[in-house]
């Protein structure tokens, strides 16, 4: 079971990386990052169940808390960027690079 869980976690991580690299829609990019975190959580939970040690479960709880705070920041960024540019295209969001932006 542990090997199957690890393989599933690797597959999910690869799907998340593919989405993260190849999409330009910023909401899909955000959800791909969440998928990466979930893949890591899955392997942590499988390892903790296999070793009967709950430290890894605490680690994945902390990862979930980090994902929640990340979600809050991402949502306010979406609203601000969508108000400024009127689009969800990640290629348009280069205001950090402009000289007088």
């Amino acid at each position, binding site marked *: 079971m542990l090997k199957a869980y690890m393989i599933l976690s690797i597959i999910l991580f690869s799907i998340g990386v593919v989405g993260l690299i190849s999409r330009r829609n910023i909401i899909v990019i955000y959800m791909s990052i969440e998928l990466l975190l*979930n893949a890591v959580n899955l392997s942590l939970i499988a390892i903790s169940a296999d070793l009967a040690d709950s430290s890894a479960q605490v680690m994945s*709880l902390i990862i979930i808390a980090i994902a929640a705070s990340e979600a809050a920041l991402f*949502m306010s960024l979406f609203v601000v960027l969508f108000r400024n540019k009127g689009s969800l295209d990640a290629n348009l969001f280069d205001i950090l690079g402009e000289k007088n932006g």
Partner: protein
Amino acid sequence: MQNEILFVILALVTIVSSVVMISAHRPIDSALSFIITLISIAALFALVNATFLFVVQIIIYAGAILSLILFIIMFLNIKDDNLPDEKYKNRWLLATSIIITPFSAILIDLILRSDIAVNGVSDEKFGTIKDVGLTLFSEWVLPFELVSILLLVALIGSVTLSKRKD
């Protein structure tokens, strides 16, 4: 045996819905299929007796974070011309998966060759809220407190970002 059948079904649901998530054109479709991914991952947690994480996954991920995403998507009132046109989306997805496949194949091969123990859980109390809570408040107190600071920073940051005048 029953667990293996359930695992295969849940793994297939997870993989298919996450593929739909990264390839759907409209963000509402990908958010809805990502909810299916998260709920089946929660069921995979429950399959290895991690009951508390199962509840947390459903409440926080599928409940709070994804409903926040759905709320934002509906609040922004996204039309089709607000979306990036992504003419070569399928080509990009194909090319990136071709690049990623060898890496994940190496990792899967490594997992298959390794001799990690397959014990399964015998302890009844494992994964309950008492067990996880005792570990959290005895060995992991410092990371727990640091997470509270992180949540405060995220709160202040999101309020500051959305209150900017320009």
